[in-house]
């Protein structure tokens, strides 16, 4: 076992899948330039040397490249299409939402669309257009699976599961969790590295995990918010509040079984997300829990999220925008009181 960052683990995952299966290829901007960066966050670094014909470096044409991935997928290829920042998914929105997500359905189930899509999210000092957490937008689109790895182990396992899935899978990755190095390192980064097994493994899409066991309240969060939840749980333990932290890992499909079991035990839930509150993923989780386990809830589900504003640039405002451990602590204190 070796310790790897998310960027490294994803790179290994791509390499292994491309080695295993000739149909797998990568398509994206600045992903295959000798002397370049391996995409915006070093994930594909050097892969162009190993797979010169399967690293497709595109012009800046997001609609074009996602549409091309769809065409190739229908011909039996397994493309991994990425954007440099999740925000740019919006430039390919029609291809993703109208074409990729619906093609199988419109064909009456006669076509498979094995596409993996990768998109970095998270506010990182770059201003409103390189910062959005778009989970809430894609979450409501039927026909796309969505995963959100918070650790290197999960990143590799979910990526490999996504590539082997016969359906469109969108992977949201967090800029501050990559562990990108050198000139591409991020300030404010959080260590999300893991011990990675030598042998092949996947993390099944749709299965969450309990990150920390507890009895008083269930805190649910993915990506960076999972790490913040763990921090909060640690702090709250000192106050005698026992927090169970659940990382759903997949948003679509969602591991209701795991979350429900936890909430039946704790009787309280706090849902944390980095995106804006209104219409967020947290709303769905809260609404569902209210229907699914209403008899067990001793308090209404609480949501911790960003306010309904674009992401501001200046650090004091950005820090105010993004939920942190303190805000989770506060919400938990309120719900247990």
């Amino acid at each position, binding site marked *: 076992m070796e310790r790897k960052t998310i960027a490294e683990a994803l790179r290994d995952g791509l390499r292994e899948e491309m080695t295993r299966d000739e149909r797998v290829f990568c398509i994206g901007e600045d992903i295959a330039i000798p002397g370049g960066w391996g995409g915006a966050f070093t994930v594909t670094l050097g892969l162009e040397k190993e797979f010169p014909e399967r690293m497709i470096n595109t012009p800046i044409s997001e609609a074009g490249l996602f549409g091309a991935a769809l065409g190739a997928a229908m011909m039996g290829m397994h493309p991994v299409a990425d954007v440099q920042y999740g925000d740019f998914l919006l430039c390919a929105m029609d291809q993703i939402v109208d074409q990729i997500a619906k093609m199988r359905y419109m064909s009456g189930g006669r076509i498979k669309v094995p596409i993996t899509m990768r998109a970095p999210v998270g506010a990182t000092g770059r201003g409103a257009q390189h910062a959005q957490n778009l989970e809430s937008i894609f979450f409501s689109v039927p026909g796309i699976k969505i995963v959100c790895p918070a650790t290197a182990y999960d990143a590799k396992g979910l990526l490999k599961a996504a590539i082997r899935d016969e*359906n469109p899978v969108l992977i949201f990755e967090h800029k501050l969790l990559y562990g990108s190095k050198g000139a591409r390192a991020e300030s404010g980064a959080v260590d999300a590295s893991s011990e990675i097994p030598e042998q092949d493994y996947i993390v099944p899409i749709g299965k969450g995990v309990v990150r920390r066991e507890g009895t008083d309240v269930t805190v649910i969060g993915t990506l960076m918010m999972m790490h913040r939840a763990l921090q909060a749980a640690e702090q709250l333990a000192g106050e005698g509040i026992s927090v169970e932290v659940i990382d759903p890992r997949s948003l679509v499909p969602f591991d209701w079984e795991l979350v429900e079991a936890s909430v039946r035990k704790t009787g309280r839930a706090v849902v944390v997300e980095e995106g804006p509150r209104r219409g967020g993923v947290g709303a769905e989780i809260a609404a569902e829990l209210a229907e699914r386990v209403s008899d067990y809830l001793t308090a209404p589900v609480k949501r911790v999220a960003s306010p309904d504003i674009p992401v501001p640039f200046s650090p004091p405002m950005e820090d105010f925008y993004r939920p942190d451990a303190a805000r989770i602590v506060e919400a938990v204190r309120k719900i247990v009181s």
Partner: protein
Amino acid sequence: MSQDAKFLLSLYRTMLLIRQFEERVKFLFLEGSMPGTIHQYQGQEAVATGVCAALNAGDVITSTHRPHGHAIARGVGVEPMMHELFGKVTGCCHGKGGSMHIGDLEKGMVPAIAIVGGNVPIATGIALAFKMRKEKRVAVSFMGDGAINEGAFHEAVNMGAIWSLPVVYVIENNLYSASTPIAQTVKLKHLSDRSAGYGIPGVTVDGNDVLAVFEAAKTAVARARAGEGPTLLECVTYRITGHSRRDPCHYQPEAERKQALLKEPIGRFAKHLMAAGIAGQTALDGIRREVDAEIEASVKSAMAAADPKPEDALNDVFA
């Protein structure tokens, strides 16, 4: 009959099959027995027919909101198409697609894309797969004159160009995008001039002359198959029916419509066949009877076929 004559008659038959299919569908739609909305192909038959005649079995086309002609020319089959238009579970998309998403990948046609321009990147990607796997197959993207102003067109054609992909981009210039005349949407003499911006060849042909279309398509397809990259092929034609549904086309000048009817591709090709001694009126009438019978049979079987169960709606989201 010579091979050549057989081929010419097959072109005629395909065009007539499209025309008669569309006329029958229009009637069914207007009388209220067919659900949904329709965008029809009357007047443009030579384009789909000429282009698809230049394709091999393994080639793949992508299509638009106006796909019936493409589907027939590509061999999707009148029966599964008619069933789909009626929303029957036996349709080529099991009733989930409908008119605007008709297709059958096994026959070489991706379910049609109703987002204008949306199919062009998909064709580029199909060609990319062919090239990566070193298969000698070709992708064709059909699009209207309106589609060339979509960003998706631009991004996709540029990618096809830089990677020299085996793809042909076919613009069916019927002079209107919905109700808007072409002069209001581009400032070009020939739409194929747009090829200059991508560094690929552009060709404009009379899209009502099935043989001219076929020849131009043959050249473009051969280029693509030989690894020489895409062609932007403009076929100038005219839609002699409404844009969709019950469109009375008041925005088309009367004189223009009259002129267009004189130049429509089927009567014109019939004249050519007769003048060249390839077929007489009797032979052509025979083809028409055949075609009508095929369509009629499809209507009958479609009307008799089963509707999907309502809860079938829940299937086919994921594999």
